[in-house]
């Protein structure tokens, strides 16, 4: 018995040492690499000062839908910061790794920053692209990712669809025709937003990239403002990329506390500033005002208003056999 106790103590000691090494895995979508790279550094300092513990944060990026599927299939994310709520809903409903009401746990429906879809065109805008009507013209080559796998591409699709609905007095057939013309102009479908940026900016394919606002600004920063222009359409969509702790994974890793704090810190002044500096629209009004110059004025519609929420939009447009499949197979 004594020996058993000694061994048990040794085991407990070893486990306690193990728990002191805090590691987090943030599974995110494609264009947030730079944002979370900077944010992780800030949070690591913050957490060290607050708790005395070192935290090592790993990032994983890809198309939002693909990333959600990876988590469902066993990728042990402590937190997910994806492009749209539907993908986190899928983790909740299919893998039951977090509760269905996860969006209520943090302010603004767990969306600490927002974004929208803009156009990135070649310098001087040689094709004269100013609004969605120009994107569907014959001879205009459009680069956008596959909405079946990319969150950003779904937002872009819905932004175009919303414009078409408004232009055609909510005639759905006309809107479908419009969106069909748009995808006829798409020569390559990447699986994620970053892939699309590579296609447009590095491989120099296409006349216009339908891009996340932050991704468009990043392209200017990375490749040079002398190469591209950002064009803001007359109407776009309010993209709300949400964040959530993956409860079961975090519990298993004993990281629930630090994972929760990691996400809450996104709402802090420092977290909001980092978001704004990386061209994500901050929720905090003061920070938004400070960085107003980073963001163009554009009329934004919401997914709830135009499409009845993500679940309905997903079923109608992006599920197998949905509108996108129908128009893309034509």
């Amino acid at each position, binding site marked *: 018995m004594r*020996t*058993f106790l000694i*061994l048990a103590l*040794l*085991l407990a000691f*070893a486990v306690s040492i*193990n728990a002191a090494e805090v590691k987090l895995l943030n599974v995110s979508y494609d264009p947030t690499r730079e944002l979370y790279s900077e944010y992780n550094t800030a949070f690591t300092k913050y957490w060290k000062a607050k708790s005395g513990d070192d935290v090592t944060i790993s990032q994983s990026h890809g198309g939002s839908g693909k990333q959600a599927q990876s988590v469902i299939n*066993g990728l042990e994310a402590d937190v997910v910061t994806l492009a749209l709520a539907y993908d986190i809903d899928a983790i909740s409903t299919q893998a039951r790794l977090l509760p269905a009401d996860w969006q209520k746990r943090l302010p603004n429906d767990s969306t600490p920053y927002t974004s929208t879809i803009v156009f990135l065109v070649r310098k001087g805008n040689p094709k004269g692209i100013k609004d969605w009507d120009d994107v569907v013209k014959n001879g205009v*080559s459009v680069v956008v990712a596959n909405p079946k796998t990319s969150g950003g591409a779904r937002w872009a699709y819905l932004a175009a669809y919303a414009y078409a609905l408004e232009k055609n007095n909510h005639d759905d057939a006309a809107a479908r025709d419009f969106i069909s013309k748009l995808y006829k102009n798409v*020569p*390559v*479908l*990447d*699986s994620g937003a970053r*892939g699309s940026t590579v*296609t447009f900016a590095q*491989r*120099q*394919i296409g006349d216009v990239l339908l891009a996340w606002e932050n991704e468009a600004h990043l392209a200017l920063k990375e490749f040079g403002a002398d190469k591209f222009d950002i064009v803001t359409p007359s109407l776009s969509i309010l993209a709300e990329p949400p964040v959530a702790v993956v409860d079961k994974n975090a519990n298993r890793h004993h990281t629930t506390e630090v994972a929760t704090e990691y996400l809450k810190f996104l709402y802090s002044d420092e977290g909001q500033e980092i978001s704004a500096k990386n061209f994500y629209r901050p929720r905090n009004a003061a920070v938004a005002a400070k960085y107003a110059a980073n963001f163009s004025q554009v009329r934004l519609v919401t997914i709830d208003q135009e499409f009845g929420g993500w679940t309905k939009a997903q079923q109608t447009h992006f599920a197998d056999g949905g509108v996108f499949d129908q128009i893309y197979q034509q």
Partner: protein
Amino acid sequence: MKTLKLKQAIIAAVVGTQFVLPVFAAESAATGTNGTAVVEIPAFAADGGSPAQEAEIKALKQQVEALVEKVSALEQQRAPAEQAATIQNLDQQVRILQRQREIDQDTATAKAATVPKVTLGANGFSFSSADSNFVAQLHAVLQFDSRSFIHDNNAKGVDGFLLRRARPILSGTVARDFEYNFTPDFGGSQVQIFDAYTIYHGAPWFQVEAGKFKPPVGLEALQADVNLSFNERSLATDLVPNRDLGLALKGDLHGGVASYVVGIFNGASDYNSTVTNSYAQNNKSVDARLFFQPWKNSDVNALRGFGFGAGGSFENDNPATNSTTGLTPGYTTDGQQKFFSYNKNVYADGVHWRLSPQAYYYYGPFGLLGEYAISDQHVSNDSAGGSKNVDVHNTAWEIAGSWLLTGEDASYSGITPRENFDPRLNQWGAWQVVARYAELNVDDDVFKGSNFNTSLASPKASADSAQAWALGLNWYLNKNVRANVSFSHTTFGGYTGSRTGVPAQAENVLFTRIQLAF
């Protein structure tokens, strides 16, 4: 051709009806070698007429020539723009195709990453999930031996062939961190489970092993069967446990510079395996080992292969539980002949501890392995007047050296030939000579007493010591196949009996082995 027609039409329009060009009738003839149009003037216009008409015609000719030059210049200006547009269009098409190919390749790579993998090679047959978290490997060990006892008067030591080990090995991992191994043996006269364990790999320094496996005591005992220098382990291994059921905590520190194992086991007797896969007594054995390789990761090549440490065990055998357990069934020679055993009615009675300081050194083709083993056990004779609670202190040691004649690196964990055996390519594998000396000394107190009922062991049945030397030649045809031959000579001390054979006379054995392991 289309361009030419256009040019000619313009000229015709400009000249009007003043003269006629045979534009369409002489299409091919109207094209010069440099691609410019040659204007044919009708004969009637050149053959005569008034000087005024001739002057007018001349002026018109000059006008036409000037126009031709202008048209040519215009065409040359327009062509590069058209060509540029065409080139740009083609460039986009090529870029799109290239990008599509990249995306297809990425998709194929991503898809391949989700497909389970099957591999077959020198390391066995392996099935693996795409993420390698689940692995099932099939290995096998087959050892086909012969033993020839020389000068044994045909009294003991049966010459012949034997299947020393025949083990299919199922091993792998589940859920990434949990290793498993299941190894039955069909080589002996009965099927046994030799290894059946799982190891949780929390971190290199924190692993938990549970099941049936080798307790961490003897250096040679812990060496894999397929990597032994000789067919059989030495006399020193007679004093350490073989396999046991237990739970151990283990790990490597500083990249393997130090390694530790501490565990609790049922408690196997000297060089004996727990055969029943169950327990025999209440008290358990605590076994532990510390081993250091201080220069393992250094740049000092000559010291990288040096390792030293010690293994040991401690248990308190309780005779009240089962008086027939706790003792070795006997110590055996290289030829697996028993030269020492306790008398009937003798049982373990109290503390049993072992200690085995040990070291090895490998540098280039040279290898040296040595260990000392103490097995100290309290033993009693259950008979009336029998010796009670005698502290028996048995010791043994060995030193074994090896040299690879073909220059490969010697290693505790196996040899990989530089060239696999292939006579067609004049390749002959790796060759190694090995030598070993070992001794085992049984405590003199064991033999105190006047007869079988009072002593713990009888000098008329057992020797009190054995000394063995052995020489061998190992041939590694490749990583998986090996053949070896060795000779072992063992002498004995203290035997006073009259039987023939071991231990009354020395043992001389010629071993051979063909081994297949993958």
